[in-house]
């Protein structure tokens, strides 16, 4: 993957404008919420709940962009726009999203403690 997991310029700007301490709190909130959103995507898909599915993908996209997690943001956006049809695509997008999230979580934890 050529794109970095976290775009440092976006992350640093967030830190500058909102304050370093606050960003630590914000990262913790994201790490707490994101697994629920990803789980929510799976459940919503299984239960065929299109609204919850779209909303979870939308939230994940929005938060990813806040921290500069661009790839995760793109994957989430594809799910938001593509809906269930996108989940069924050959490249297993839900798994891809979960894997990308693991990378993002690791990178954010590292930045948080830096």
């Amino acid at each position, binding site marked *: 993957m050529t794109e970095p997991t976290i775009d440092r310029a976006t992350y640093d700007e*967030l830190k500058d404008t909102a*304050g370093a301490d606050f960003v630590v*709190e914000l990262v913790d*909130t994201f790490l707490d*919420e994101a697994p629920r959103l990803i789980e929510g995507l799976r459940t919503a898909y299984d239960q065929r709940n299109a609204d919850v599915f779209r*909303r979870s993908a939308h939230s994940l996209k929005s*938060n990813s962009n*806040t921290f500069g997690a661009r790839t995760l943001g793109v994957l989430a956006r594809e799910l938001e726009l593509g809906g269930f049809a996108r989940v069924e695509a050959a490249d297993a997008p839900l798994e891809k999203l979960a894997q990308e999230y693991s990378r993002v979580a690791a990178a954010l934890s590292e930045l948080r403690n830096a």
Partner: protein
Amino acid sequence: MREGGHGAARLLVVDDNKVNRLLLTRSLELQGHSVASAENGRVALEMLRRESFDAVLLDMEMPEMDGFQVLEVLVADLQLRDLPVIVTSSLEGVDNIVRCLELGAEDYLPKPVNPVLLKARLGASLEKKRLRDQQKDWMRRFAIREVAQDLQESGFALGGKRINATVMFSDIRGFTGLSETQTPEETIELLNTYYTLMFDAISGHGGIVTLMAADGLMAIFGAPVPQPDPCDSAVRTALEMLETIDLFNLDRDAAGKPQIKIGIGIASGDMVAGYAGTNERAAYTCIGDTVNLAARLESHTKVALRPVLIDRATHEAVADRFATESLGPVQIRGKKKPVDVYAVTPAHKA
């Protein structure tokens, strides 16, 4: 309810996503605002109805009640429809953004929200709200609550509609002579006290003052907001005005000032109510024979030597409740045929 220093506002952030909520709240607090938050549209509306806010930052994608639904409720709510709403969302598609603006959103800011842009847009929205609030305040002061409300609900248009209502004219007897015996400052002070007392009696019975000219007042009962019994309200108001003036005269007497006396004419029936004037300057008023008759009855109090005169229509509506006396058909200035005139006997003399 603006609190804090200049430019500090009370804001409501509405977003179902905790990260977004925290971040936006933080950005706004760093700009000196006081911020509350809600996690969906339903909770937001509850808060907006309970507390006073200067602006709302609204997400669109939310469970229970989304941003579009919130905008729809706000635009239909007279109390809340002027509240500026800035949509902050990562909505997909220009259509959705257009829909927000069409539903009355003041502005749209894409997420992640740029703090500099946020500050500028919010500042502009708050300034517009401040001007609107000021205008509303002026309108309340120089117009009348009911008229202000009518304007807000129906908009402004010259012209009127036919209504059935009761009109009252009142003035101070011998005002010109009175003015000559005192300084202009004393006259203004007397008028201000007089207006305060009379307005209080009139609005206390649901009437509105539509005209003030020196010592003369014109008031309408039953328009623009209909009243169950405008004749009754007008006569009660007249009696209260007389009692108030009696009390006021006790004060004036104690201060060695001359007594004042008022005359009141009341008539009921059809009239045309609406905005008369030009598009630049207009007033809410009522016109028609009924209005002329009330004015004539008021001047006739000087001839009849009775403080309150009413026409036949008003009399028919209130005769069972008030002590009245028929003065018979009276030839009134400006009327071809004599009209039936009745005097209302002040309660304390009955």
